[in-house]
């Protein structure tokens, strides 16, 4: 199995989750109020203040086969709005 870590702006959370659902993921876990820095942007806590929102960190545990599918759905969002996606190995306990 695989573990997918997605980090992107909270403002796109709904859209991202919809895309994941379209890709038929078996489940996901969301941590909000996450901050960070990418190659271009710094996301700090005062972003929440202005309503921009901080980042969301989404974890998906799924089969390797599903990753391609997910990629198709979420790549446009990541390209348009920014954000990162990394994959690691994982197995059920």
């Amino acid at each position: 199995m695989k573990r997918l870590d997605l980090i992107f702006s909270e403002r796109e959370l709904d859209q991202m989750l919809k895309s994941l659902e379209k890709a038929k993921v078996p489940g996901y876990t969301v941590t909000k109020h996450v901050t960070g820095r990418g190659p271009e942007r710094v996301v700090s806590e005062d972003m929440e203040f202005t309503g921009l929102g901080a980042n969301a960190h989404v974890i998906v545990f799924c089969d390797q086969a599903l990753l391609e599918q997910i990629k198709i759905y979420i790549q446009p969002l990541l390209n348009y709005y920014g954000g990162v996606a990394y994959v690691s190995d994982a197995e059920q306990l």
Partner: protein
Amino acid sequence: MDTSLILQNVLTPPVLFFFLGTISVFLKSDLEIPAPLPKLFSLYLLLAIGFKGGLELQKSGMGGPVLPTVCASILMSLLIPLICFVVLRLKLNVFNSAAIAAAYGSISAVTFITAESFLESQSIPFDGFMVAALAIMESPAIIVGLLLVKLGAPKERPIERKMRWKEILHESMLNGSVYLLLGSLLIGLLTGAFNPSGVAKMQPFTGKIFYGVECFFLLDMGIVAAQRLPSLKKAGSFLIGFAVLMPIFNALIGVFVARALGLQPGNALLFTVLCASASYLAVPTAMRMTVPEAKSSYYISTTLGVTFPFNVVVGIPVYMGLVNNLIPTPG
């Protein structure tokens, strides 16, 4: 310039708490108002000014200077972003210029509140219907900003980034803070008309503790504004200059329009402050959704890091001086 007015303004609790927040950042104190407490304060303030404005509007009705003022407000929030855009294009690309222009065309509710507190501390009367102008000036500039992107950079955007009008109207009118302000205004209107006992029961919450919450919130605003300064340096001196001079220029236009409208000094100051202030709540969220090409650090640092502090500390009393000098007092 009336320095005594500036001093009197600086010595009110809201401005003093604002300084307390700012200084805490410079001294590297670990004073922090953790999320979502600032959100609590800002929601409260929007709800309360909306509700109180609605009550006043219900009392005053739509006659007298109300309608002309509201119309002038809309015009100003369409005109100001255009002027700003022209200035900003001297140095910045279309996306950044449009986003910043939209922010300066829109308004800052907290600056407005601070101006009201200033008027109260000076015992200068003003009318509740100005809250309607506040509410109405939040959105139009957003639409202007997006139109500027559409017209100014038609080819630079890939097809899938085409504007969806529905989305834009949605972002501009249904942004959480715009919606709460307008909604509370309406509720105030309805309560004032149909449920007078409800008005009295709301008063301790929306009226009495308002000033204290405002101070608490300005403490946080001081912290947040000072934290924006490092990213300001990156933005460069052009933007810093813009963030100080543009509000003054907009205020000048505002004073003359207020004069033309025949507004009383208190209302004239509030109108001027609306013109001079820039949005850091509604506009950034709308721009992030619709113009992700613009650097959010630009429009947040200028509005929150420079224009807001400038207006609250120096601007409001200076604009009062302008009003006093440029508008002949009746009688």
